[in-house]
């Protein structure tokens, strides 16, 4: 008789090895030039683009943080996800993403900082945007490592310690990113996205049939426990969270860089229309598992995740391990995409313009890989301290990125935006948000998240300062509007 620990470890390793094999095949097809390494030569088709973006959104939050919230506070988070990812992000996909695709195609940009730096004739702005992005990327990568660590502990009931789970995913993602580039990451994202979508439905069917239908799960609730709203979920909370996260997602390096990679606008159109359906297919089952666990009286210890415990209770050991493997794979694909994009921000927007403009391709590649290693080790060490819950840390990172979105949007559509306006909007909103999140000031005003006020401040400063200043001579005002073509 094989012990359950051996089964769990075997399943997880087997899954990670399959993912690695896919990456290595992609690696053999990858050319080392930067445009291919980071953007897969702007050649991604609908399925791959959709799933690579989708899988990137799937993080420790989807399988652990979200169901935990549904367990403790009710399933209303599904509505937050619907408003945020299904609607607001889809609209941003068009308004911001399609516009960036057009501009990137016409001018050959690879990063957000490069695009803004060129338009406003400012290396400083380019470096600022890259630096801010890396700053907020740090907690988000740490979140994935924390998720992996707690998942392993929950699955093996502590037989494998927290640090080992976090370390496993760290090593895996560094090797992966260094080896495969975007083509490798995109291919495994597709495999993983499909796998997770399938497995979460199997998990739901399994649990529902084991308990004899969902009605059994509701008998454990008070009459109004499932009423919409109440407790954590105020209208202000739902709207603040959905808006800040949707706008934050659009500025995540790995998502934003995806806006440059579609093969044609057909790919973008199809992804845009399919987006809300994917959101329903994934988040409804994942979060309802957490809700049902609460009704079934599943006991979740402090700091543990509900999904592994629920699955261990109602499904065989190997299946629970497989779901955890899928979730770890999701975290890995989130993290390796993030590290890859982060490394392109580091080399193209910080290292090359500021440190060594004449660096060879080989040297740049070396800097990128060392940067990834250092960054991942840093987030790993920070994750050992578990400085907050998965939700808190995720929200911090999203809201930080969200401060960038409105200044960027203004600049893409309003040709009178000036460099001074951009500096004012970006620095002003970031300073405001840092003081309210990491600093001493209140996190909410009148129930609304401070991040939302920061976004409005950024918008007002960008427009206001642009209106009263005139452009510097080296600003190229027509960059984002003239000479764009779709075919």
């Amino acid at each position, binding site marked *: 008789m094989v012990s359950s620990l051996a089964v769990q470890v075997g399943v997880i390793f087997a899954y990670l090895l399959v993912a690695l094999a896919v990456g290595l095949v992609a690696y053999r097809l990858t050319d080392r030039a930067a445009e291919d390494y980071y953007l897969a030569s702007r050649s991604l088709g609908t399925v791959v683009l959709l799933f690579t973006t989708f899988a990137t959104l799937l993080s420790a939050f989807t399988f652990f943080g979200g169901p935990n919230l549904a367990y403790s506070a009710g399933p209303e988070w*599904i*509505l937050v996800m619907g408003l945020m990812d299904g609607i607001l992000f889809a609209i941003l996909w068009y308004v911001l993403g399609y516009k960036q695709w057009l501009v990137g195609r016409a001018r050959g940009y690879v990063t957000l900082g490069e695009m803004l730096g060129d338009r406003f004739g400012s290396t400083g702005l380019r470096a600022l945007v890259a630096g801010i992005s890396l700053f907020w990327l740090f907690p988000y990568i740490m979140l994935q490592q924390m998720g992996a660590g707690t998942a392993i502990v929950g699955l093996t009931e502590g037989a494998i310690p927290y640090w080992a789970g976090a370390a496993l995913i760290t090593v895996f993602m560094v090797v992966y990113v260094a080896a495969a580039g975007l083509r490798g990451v995109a291919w495994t994202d597709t495999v993983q996205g499909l796998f997770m979508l399938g497995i979460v439905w199997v998990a739901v069917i399994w649990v529902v049939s084991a308990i004899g239908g969902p009605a059994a799960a509701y008998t454990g609730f008070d009459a109004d426990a499932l009423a919409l709203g109440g407790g954590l979920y105020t209208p202000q909370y739902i709207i603040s969270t959905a808006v800040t996260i949707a706008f934050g997602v659009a500025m995540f390096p790995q998502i934003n860089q995806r806006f440059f990679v579609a093969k044609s606008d057909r790919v973008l159109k199809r992804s845009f*229309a399919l987006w809300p359906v994917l959101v329903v297919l994934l988040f409804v089952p994942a979060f309802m598992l957490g809700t049902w666990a609460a009704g079934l009286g599943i006991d979740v210890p402090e700091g543990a995740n509900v999904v592994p415990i629920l699955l261990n209770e109602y499904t065989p050991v190997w299946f629970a391990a497989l779901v955890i493997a899928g979730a770890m794979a999701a975290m890995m694909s989130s993290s390796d995409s993030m590290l890859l994009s982060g490394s392109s921000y580091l080399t193209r927007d910080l290292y090359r313009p500021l440190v060594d403009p004449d660096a060879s391709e080989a040297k740049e590649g070396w800097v990128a890989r060392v940067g990834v290693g250092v960054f991942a080790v840093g987030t790993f060490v920070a994750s050992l301290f578990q400085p907050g819950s998965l939700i808190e840390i995720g929200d911090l990172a999203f809201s930080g990125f969200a401060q960038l979105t409105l200044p960027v949007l203004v600049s893409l559509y309003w040709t009178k935006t000036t460099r001074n306006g951009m500096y004012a909007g970006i620095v002003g909103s970031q300073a405001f948000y840092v003081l309210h999140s990491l600093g001493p000031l209140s996190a909410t005003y009148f129930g609304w998240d401070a991040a939302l006020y920061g976004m409005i401040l950024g918008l007002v400063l960008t427009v206001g300062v642009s209106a009263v200043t005139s452009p510097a001579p080296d600003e190229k005002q027509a960059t984002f509007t003239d000479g764009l073509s779709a075919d």
Partner: protein
Amino acid sequence: MTRQKRDYLWVVAFAVLVVFAVPWFLWGDSRIVAGLPLWLWWHIGWMGVASATFYAFTRGAWDRGMGVTRG
């Protein structure tokens, strides 16, 4: 209908999608229908409506306001 009027209709359509993504009129409702809370069924249906609307947008109004030349 002029092109500009149609553009405004799209803005309105998107705004409606955003506003009713949360079924505010079911606030406090705790009915369970066919194994899920009633308000969750609204969410599922609404995401379907959103997908269909976005599809129609890609067919009829894509490129609006982007300053793109075709061909």
